[in-house]
């Protein structure tokens, strides 16, 4: 059991000459993901295109998307969700958007910034988080453990609400990785996730059921 043992075997194996048939199979495509951008589903060059892609995919995924003009309108949306679901408590984390919106909401807030009490968080009907970005190409929300309230906040509650500003809508996954590298450099958070719709399963007779283990409902409120 050793690193050098396995690496040695790998090197020895790689030194074996390849059969020409396999060599022919090897060299067809580009090895640079950046060059393959155009082969993947489109992200959108303009904001209008990106928005059209994002909302089209969100609809397919049963993600509710609300576009609001400003914080005030976002607060109204949240208040409406609050009154329809009747939240006893709200879980969230400190961030410009949540500070402004969650504190005013009414129910007691469980902040996850100083550590997470799993049982308390589990009992919350809703988790409200910021995000690193929205991805038009896939209809995804990009979150990290550092910028979005930790690992559990966005997966443990039955309803996950994402607050984003319109300029966070990026064209594609590649742009998402660029953003992460730019924002965090070599110190990437220990947890990064592309969330594409609510938790789902088709394990029983291929019938789609939402809320398999994580949120049953995903709402994205886009401000601006």
């Amino acid at each position, binding site marked *: *059991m*050793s*690193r050098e*043992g*396995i*690496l040695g075997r*790998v090197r020895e*194996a*790689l030194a074996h000459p390849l*059969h020409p*048939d*396999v060599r022919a*199979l090897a*060299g*067809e*495509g*580009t*090895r640079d*993901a*950046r*060059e*393959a951008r*155009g*082969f*993947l589903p*489109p992200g959108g060059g303009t904001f209008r295109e990106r928005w059209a892609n994002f909302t089209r*995919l969100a609809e397919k995924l049963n993600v509710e998307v609300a576009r609001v003009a400003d914080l005030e309108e976002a607060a109204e949306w949240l208040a409406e969700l609050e009154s329809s679901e009747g939240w006893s408590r709200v879980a969230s984390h400190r961030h410009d958007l949540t500070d402004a919106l969650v504190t005013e909401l009414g129910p007691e807030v469980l902040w996850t*910034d100083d*550590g997470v009490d799993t049982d308390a968080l*589990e009992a919350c009907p809703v988790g409200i988080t910021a995000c690193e970005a929205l991805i038009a190409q*896939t209809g995804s929300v990009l979150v990290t*453990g550092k910028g979005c309230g*930790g*690992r*559990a906040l966005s*997966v443990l509650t039955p309803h996950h609400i994402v607050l984003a500003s319109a300029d966070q809508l990026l064209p594609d*996954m590649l742009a998402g*990785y660029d953003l992460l*590298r730019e924002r965090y450099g070599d110190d*990437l*958070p*220990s947890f*990064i*996730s*592309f*969330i*594409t*719709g609510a*938790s789902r399963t*088709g*394990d*029983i*007779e*291929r019938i789609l*059921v939402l*809320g*398999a*283990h*994580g*949120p049953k409902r995903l709402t994205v409120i886009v401000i601006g």
Partner: protein
Amino acid sequence: MSEASIQFKHDADESTVDFEHRRWMQDALRGYENSRGGTEATFGDFEEARKTAAAIKWEAIEHLDRHLESFADKLEARGAKICWADNGKEAVDYILGVCRDRGAKKIIKSKCMTTEEIHLNPALRAAGMEVVESDLGEYIVQLREEDPFHFVFPAMHLKRDKISKIFEEKIGSEPSSDPGELTMIARRQLRRKYCEADIGISGANFGVADTGMISITENEGNARLTTSLPKVHIAVMGIEKVIPKLEDLSVMLQMLGTAGTGQWLTAYNSMIGGPRRAGETDGPEEFHLVLLDNHRTRLLADPEQRDALRCIRCGACLNVCPIFKNIGGHSYGTTYQGPIGSVITPHLRGLRSFKHLSYSSSLCGACTETCPVKIDLHHHLLRNRRDAVMEKGGKLEGFAFRQFAWMMSRPKLYRAGEGMMRFAARLRKPLNGGRMDPLKSWTRTRDLPDPAPKSFHRQWKERRKDPRGGGS
């Protein structure tokens, strides 16, 4: 014949005559093909994307030593502990050691075929620990004490009534015929398990060499919970899962979703780099990664089949395979079913015992055509057949073919034989399908058509004599 091949023949025989089950499978897999087709159409150029995915994985394999080193160094710098395991036993021993050190009693797992490959669950259970699979399909087959039927859809062979019944028996729930309700029963059960677990064990779909992170693809969120709540996270991955760069995931994740389930991206594609970091609010205190060889280097050394290590375990080759559709996943008796399983299992577990899998293929090539990383699957099956014959050729088979060749090159003898066959066929007819039928191993499950009244050769001759006579 090896024990594995006798079992295979027996199980395949049984499931092939179960027509209802076959129809069920075919309906389910047609659903997959439809959604995959729709998703492929949204790509700018799916074929080019596929070539890119194959090339990225090839780059990873071709410089596997370099990428593995970078991956391990980066991950260690992020506080991970790494175990380099030559084989399943070393991997299991290491994991048992971590569990003992932590005094762990309860373990939650998210889907990981590599742990099936090394038979981790029985070992943990034997050491007195409770192990719970959290993927819904895996949870169901675990309750039924059977193996996954398909390495992406573990419980696709079960209808809701069977699932309801096993829940009733094992966890005392009320019967239900609603998949939504059944899912919620499992959700409630498993919620408690995540919160109570001492250790979470996951797999990894990719290891990103330049950032030192693993990537996990899932739909249910069970892997996220498994890797978030317990104090210790152990990930188990094969050494071939490394890819060079973070950016490569933009191609690989979308290919995995599309080829795996027909989704353009699954619900959660998460990267995890080590334990919780300073300034983060939650996450495990410890992160261990087990990097497993278990004969993967043997496949790497194979001059013809190295590309099989490109596999991203999407399961697409199973979904389109006419053999898989008919015999089902359990017949294979392997961790990895279907064409890719038939290709790699002889390398991982020995050609002698698993060469029969190379014959569980019609060589139609549907697997090769659908593979998102362009593995030359059906040719590899053919190569394994050749290797099996070279290793221990069938002497009788060789003799029979030599006789056949000898007869076929002698037209008179051939025609005499043909006449005898016709006569023998008439004699056999009344015995058709019965116990006395000399061809009963064929006619038990298939029809044997009557020979044509006149051979092609005779028809040809007659036509030439009388071109307007119609010939037959």
